[in-house]
């Protein structure tokens, strides 16, 4: 049985992979707020290009494309709607037959598209180059309660595990003559014999898991240590400072401009 992990993490060796998760989180914040503060479309383009460069550096650009592709339809519709119907529309940009696109609306749309793509890319930098467990561990060190950390971690494991249990249960019921393929009504009928064992198994395993956690001191109030200490590049913290300073500078520039 092949269990698919519920994570987009790509195991590569690159400079981006060695940066710690917190710095990447700060970068998401930075890449979003910096163009917003400066309100200048060239900066937005610049940051987006920078994100893409980082993705290329992290050798994960190819994995970003399907994620971008998914949002492409939505973004295209923004372009059409804003271009045609934005209330600010005055200057005709171009027209196809009787369909008229206006400059103001298109500009608004381009800004939105840039923001969304930047957000997606910077989140991809985090998600594609960071092990989920490393991210959660970093957050726990920054003060995230261990219980919430456990919940986040376990979701990553339990969902694929449940998926494989589902497959086994479905096999067991098909073996007893339930037709699972074909008409909608047969599929609906086949659903109920699956539900019982899935829920029962989930309940039973939840109880066992909680007991297993308890015997290993899950509720202990002692300071927790970590089995694996991932080593990250030391450049992370200075980078965070630089981003904060640049951001503060941008805010200052906007205020006193």
């Amino acid at each position, binding site marked *: 049985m*092949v269990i698919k992990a519920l994570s987009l993490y790509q195991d590569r060796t690159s400079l981006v992979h060695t940066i710690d998760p917190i710095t990447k989180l700060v970068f998401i914040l930075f890449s979003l707020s910096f163009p917003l503060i400066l309100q200048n479309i060239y900066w937005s383009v610049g940051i987006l290009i920078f994100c893409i460069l980082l993705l290329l550096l992290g050798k994960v650009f190819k994995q970003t494309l399907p994620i971008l592709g998914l949002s492409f339809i939505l973004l295209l519709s923004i372009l059409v709607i804003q271009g045609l119907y934005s209330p600010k529309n005055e200057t005709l940009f171009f027209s196809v037959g009787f369909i008229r696109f206006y400059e103001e609306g298109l500009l608004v749309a381009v800004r939105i598209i840039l923001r969304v793509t930047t957000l997606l890319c910077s989140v991809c930098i985090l998600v594609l180059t960071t092990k989920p467990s490393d991210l959660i561990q970093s957050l726990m060190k920054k003060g995230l309660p261990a219980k919430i950390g456990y919940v986040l971690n376990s979701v990553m494991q339990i969902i694929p595990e449940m998926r494989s*249990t589902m497959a*086994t*249960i479905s*096999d*067991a*019921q*098909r*073996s*007893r*003559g*339930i*037709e*699972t*393929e074909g008409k909608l009504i047969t599929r609906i009928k086949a659903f*109920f*014999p*699956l*539900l*019982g*064992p899935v829920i*029962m*198994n989930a309940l*039973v395993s939840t109880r066992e898991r909680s007991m297993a956690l308890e015997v290993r001191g899950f509720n202990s109030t002692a300071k927790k240590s970590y089995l694996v200490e991932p080593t990250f590049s030391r450049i992370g913290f200075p980078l965070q400072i630089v981003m904060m300073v640049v951001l503060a500078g941008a805010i200052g520039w906007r205020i006193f401009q």
Partner: protein
Amino acid sequence: MTSITVKSLSFYYKKEDPILTDISLTFDQRTTAIIGQNGAGKTTLVKLLKGLLKPASGEIWINDQDTRVVSVAKLAGYIGLVFQNPNDQIFKSKVIDEVMFGPLNVGQPKEEAITNSMNALLMVGMEDKKDDHPYDLSLSERKLISIASIIAMNTDIVIFDEPTIAQDYAGKETIKRVIHDLQKKGKWVITIIHDMDFVAETFARTIVLANGKILLDGTTREIFLQKDVLVQAGLNLPHVTQLGYLLEKNKTVLTIDEFIKDSKL
């Protein structure tokens, strides 16, 4: 007419990582044990027989039905499989309903399903639990229920996946009796199993799988004579057989009864 034919069967999830390679097999009325290390491909093989997986190449015919074409639900009328974990199938709130679920699915009329189910429960010795809630029973009892629910389907072929797990001595004896009873009724019984003592006591034929290939195939006595090959495949001999070899070389003792009869004491 019962028949199982496996022709040059191969299977993989990923091409570079084959699970079964070029297996050709036929089964017969002899009770058959399939043994092998974890990961040797035993469960994959029976899932293929059952039609739950489709061959990557080669073919499998069950009672003149091509498993590549016929749906699993259709095949269920010919071939029953008892899963390793009974919790994967039990969903009714009464034992008798659970056992009757399979028979009704394969088209037995209600009266017949009731008779078959009661007989199956009798066979595994659980007839007095018929109105209990399955989850009020112990795991080993639930396992017996899951066995009964396959037997009640009255298929020509019955496959067990690790039937003796979590069973005490009495449970194992029950399962041994069930296997013999099924064989007497003309059913073909195939079992995946790790318990070598149980293999030696129960099965006429043994097939050894290793790394997705058939390493040995013969009567159980012939198989346990090849102790070096078995050890290489990471398998143990039955305890009493080991003792036999230690005391008297070149003689294969399979069961305790045999051992006692043979001993010169």
